[in-house]
């Protein structure tokens, strides 16, 4: 079963302390929301978990293996996939090629045709099967988000981090993304979801992490976290004003 442990993560950019002593553990297919005001350190934390940034101090372990020293591709192969705040489809490649990349990268001897059936299933699940031979740049913003989610299914990690999956998405596509998260989670994949969409994050997640200026100020059941005075003061209170 999945176990991801972040121990005492600090991150400084020059004199700026972006993360201060952040520790948490994810066990099994949890569905976690990560919230916090702008500049709280959410994306920095994501980049550290993913290997794109090295922590100033602290460690990250996944299933007993240390991953904070690995490059991003090593973390991906260890079973952690992520999306980016700004959609990053491979724009001058077809939708199908976009999906084949993670599948091929995971297996050294793989051939493209081994994964075409799986890619087709993923595209159908995400309702963009008709676009499979289009260049990714021809897709709308929301469809490109779906494509990114599809790539993660092809990577087939144990844990998925989504950075703002609902930002700027049409309500109908939002339904698809919502279904993606709940169904993929039910199949045993853990999620950490960063979002500013409070209603969605409170209904979707079963555990909430709240960052405020680099401090992890709350970690627990969304209903409980919502009533936490620290959280209210730091974040939710501002929202209600």
């Amino acid at each position, binding site marked *: 079963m999945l176990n991801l442990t972040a121990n005492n993560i600090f991150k400084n950019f020059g004199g700026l302390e972006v993360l201060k002593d952040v520790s948490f553990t994810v066990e099994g297919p949890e569905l976690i929301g990560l919230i916090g005001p702008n500049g709280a350190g959410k994306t920095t934390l994501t980049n550290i978990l*993913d290997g*794109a940034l090295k922590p100033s101090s602290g460690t990250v372990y996944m299933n007993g293996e240390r991953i904070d020293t690995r*490059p*991003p*591709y090593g973390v*991906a*192969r260890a079973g952690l*996939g*992520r999306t*980016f705040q700004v959609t*990053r*489809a*491979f*724009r*001058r*490649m077809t939708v199908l*090629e976009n999906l*084949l*990349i*993670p599948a*091929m*990268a*995971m297996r050294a001897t*793989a051939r*493209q045709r081994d994964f075409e059936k799986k890619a087709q299933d993923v595209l*159908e699940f995400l*309702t963009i*099967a*008709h*676009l499979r*031979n*289009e*260049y990714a*740049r*021809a*897709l*709308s913003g929301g*469809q490109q988000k779906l494509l990114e989610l599809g*790539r993660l299914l092809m*990577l087939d990690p144990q844990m998925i981090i989504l950075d703002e999956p609902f930002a700027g998405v049409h309500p*109908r596509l939002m*339904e698809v993304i919502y*279904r993606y998260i709940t169904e993929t989670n039910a199949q045993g994949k853990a999620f950490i979801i960063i979002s500013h969409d409070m209603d969605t994050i409170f209904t979707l997640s079963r555990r909430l992490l709240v960052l405020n200026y680099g401090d992890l100020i709350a970690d627990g059941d969304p209903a409980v976290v919502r009533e936490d005075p620290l959280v209210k003061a730091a974040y939710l209170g501002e929202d209600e004003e």
Partner: protein
Amino acid sequence: MNPTALFRVAGAAAVVILLLIPLASSELGGLGPLVLSGYVMHLAITAFFYAILASSWSLLAGYAGQFSFGHMAFMAIGGYTSGLIGKFIRFTTAPSELCTDIPLFGSWWLVVLNIRRVGTIDESCLDMAKTETLPAGTLIVFPPVWASIAMGLVMGATFGLLVGWLVLRLRSTYLALFTIGFSEILRASISAEIPITEGQSGLELVPLFPAGLLGFSSTSKIPPYYAMLLLFLVAMAMMTWLAGSRFGLFIRAIREDEEAAAALGVNIVRYKVLVFVITSTLAAAAGALQGHYIGIITPNTLIILQMSLVIAMAVIGGLENIYTASVGAIVITFMLELLRTNITIGPLHIDMTLWRLVFFGLLLMLTLRFQRNGLLYPILERISRGGVAAETVSIRAAPDEDEVDVEDEEHPPSGPDENADAEAVNDHAESDR
């Protein structure tokens, strides 16, 4: 005919024509009314040389997105390595005592020459050894041309590895500046080290086939034509295979977005270094072969103008495809020569040997302004992807049971919305073409 079959037939036809062209050369008496002079054959060889450079550069810049200006430097590394081996290395059956002797297997020795300039005459230690230390009957053997060319490839690959590793974290402008710097340093070093490289006067190389081949003399254009054509075809076959494999998929992903590729499990360091090594080796191979064909290599092949020529060929043909880049190179090599014909209109006399570069520059500017993907690539795209938009629309229009189910369960179908979506997709597809 489907696009893949069409391309295969066209490719096979092109290969057959290229193989048959020497039959029409003046050396073989021509083919009916078609007689190709030695000059045309020379142009063809040069065209293949540039086609190898432009297509391998397109693999590096167009596929992997690594805009290197050092490609001609690797070409020169191949040529100079092969030339220097020919100049400084001999094999003998006895130690010379006066040169640097390295024992090989059996009674063979590898001798590194030490060449002194006495007045205007180059005096090598081996010449002295012949009269002084070497026993009578000692065999002195030149390194075979193919072996020195092979060493050129090894050096190209080694420098490709080194530069590839050094530029790993450099992007766009910085990579371009770094590689320009590398190229200039190499040019300056070659120009300065006159005792080794002969500097600006150029390093002489033995002919590709010193003893001739199959009855053709060492100055015949036909054996070099086939040698360069063979290298060109092997390079294209290799790059075609690479571009169609996981390697091609990954380097294009790196071009599009390095971080995203890494987050999806692609070892970007490995593939960036690999693409540098492979393309540098191809450039070095072309350089070594061309050096032996021409018989001399000078540091001027490294000037930025030469590199720009290769880039312009790839850009005008179509940077993102090895075939369009190579056809661009072949067409432009011939075009630049055809444009040498001077024009006289009434009292106006245009010296085209000077003005042709202006026309060439103009063509490059117009291509970059109006056809950024090159002049040939869009045609290729139109043939290979012509059916995509129609396919998208037809799949979209087909009833999809799963989707209908979802719509029914979660919210009522929203007719107008869906149409708007489909139109958006069609719009994108149209603009894409």
